[in-house]
């Protein structure tokens, strides 16, 4: 069995009608991701990478670089306009974008987890924190009420949310706690692959640190493979073994994280590293 869990080839997403010049007139050389001929937005073009079991891959870039689009396509939040992704689940290979909607939903609910920057995308604010987790457990075929409740409570405790807050609405939680509930929810089905989209952005520094520590502990305990999207070099340095650098919808550079930070090759990455505090 290969160590690979995910293999992404030529993944692309263009918003708009597309013309033959979209690709050649966008990207870092043209300093834009908007096609000047037809106005289409090249959110991501020709993204390629392999992810191994238990590995943390970082994707770094500024707003509009295509880093979030990339993970959203892989989590089936957005539909790619081209490219393929293969998910290696044990001995079974899935051609992800060839699956039908029901199969994609099932993969998303049972085998993947997602933590969004905005908790409103990841959590249902009409129901309790425990209910949010229960929802995901129900979708993954756990049916017994008592079991679901115990497991939801355990997950909240694991992510350092007090069990007594289980029946409260996440609306009443702090930003850091909402992220913890999202992480608990994402982990509910013990997925082998987790997507984290700017999970610490906008949080207080001390809260950021605690969330990052939690992510590392989970990776250590469960061996979950993760794709971490961020614009923060510190997050990449702390979490990721390998990193992709994106700009204007393209991967401009990829490598071992320490190499990206100490010996960046692309002009943009050199500027990025030089401007870190």
């Amino acid at each position: 069995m290969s160590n690979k869990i995910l293999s992404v080839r030529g993944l692309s997403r263009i918003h708009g009608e597309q013309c033959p010049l979209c690709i050649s007139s966008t990207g870092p050389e043209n300093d834009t991701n908007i096609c000047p001929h037809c106005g289409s937005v090249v959110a991501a073009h020709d993204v390629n990478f392999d992810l191994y079991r238990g590995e943390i891959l970082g994707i770094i870039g500024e707003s509009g670089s295509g880093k979030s689009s990339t993970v959203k396509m892989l989590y089936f939040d957005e539909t790619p306009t081209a490219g393929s992704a293969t998910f290696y689940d044990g001995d079974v290979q899935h051609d992800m974008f060839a699956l039908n909607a029901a199969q994609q939903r099932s993969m998303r609910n049972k085998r993947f987890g997602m933590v969004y920057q905005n908790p409103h995308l990841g959590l249902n604010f009409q129901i309790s924190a425990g209910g949010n987790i229960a929802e995901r457990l129900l979708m993954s075929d756990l049916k017994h009420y008592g079991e679901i409740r115990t497991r939801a409570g355990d997950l909240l405790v694991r992510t350092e949310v007090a069990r007594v807050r289980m029946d409260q609405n996440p609306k009443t939680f702090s930003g850091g706690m909402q992220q913890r509930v999202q992480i608990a929810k994402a982990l509910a089905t013990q997925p082998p692959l987790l997507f984290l989209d700017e999970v610490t952005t906008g949080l207080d520094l001390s809260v950021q640190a605690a969330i990052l520590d939690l992510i590392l502990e989970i990776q250590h305990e469960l061996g979950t493979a993760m794709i971490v999207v961020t614009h923060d070099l510190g997050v990449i340095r702390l979490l990721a073994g390998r990193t992709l650098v994106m700009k204007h919808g393209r991967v401009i550079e990829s490598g071992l994280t320490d190499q990206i930070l100490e010996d960046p090759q692309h002009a943009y990455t050199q500027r990025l590293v030089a401007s870190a505090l």
Partner: protein
Amino acid sequence: MNAILTIENYAKTFCLHERNKLIPSASHVNLSVYPGKLTALIGPTGAGKSSVLKGVYRTYLPSAGRMLFRTASGEIVDLAQADEHLILELRKSEIGFVTQFLHCLPRKSALDVVAEPLFARGVETEEARGRAADLLAQLAVPSHLWNVPPATFSGGEKQRVNLARGLIAQPRLLLLDEPTASLDPATTERVVAHLETLKGSGIAMLAIFHHPDLVRRLADSVIELSPPVAIVEPVEEIA
């Protein structure tokens, strides 16, 4: 005996796009490292000693040359070209690097910082911590510091934590960048004794030492590097 690492014509040149400049950092480096032996790199500041070590560890992407590493299974891998996942695997199990400065996760106790390479290999937490404690004791790090994050440690204490972390996993090839630079003479002696034991157990080392005396005592072969020739820029670019 077969070399574990053979470097052929390694060169590293940095290309600074912003300033439109090429900065050569090392060139024409040739050397071999053998199991149980220490190869020392010497030369003035700027000769590219650290660049060689970082090239081997792939923190730098080599600009030219080959770095042939013989793995535990007997395969020959060119570290300059090897796939990133293979490099990560080798870092975990075969190649260790003790850098000049301690870079570690904040908020982790010294014990866990040292034990980290063992955790990565799947050693049980308690056993890993036990071995970390033994090593910290050997390197004379006071035991009341073991459960404290190293951020507040003195330079010498940090360096010993750093050393302990590099040595604990007993890699087959150990890269050492001035591992004793900020240690007092007594502690330096402990480190020297420990390095000699590791050599005795067959670990190959490629090292940079601040003190010529340490080179004399520990090195089995010495490679002298000289600074690469600077690239002369055309006059109009300077103006």
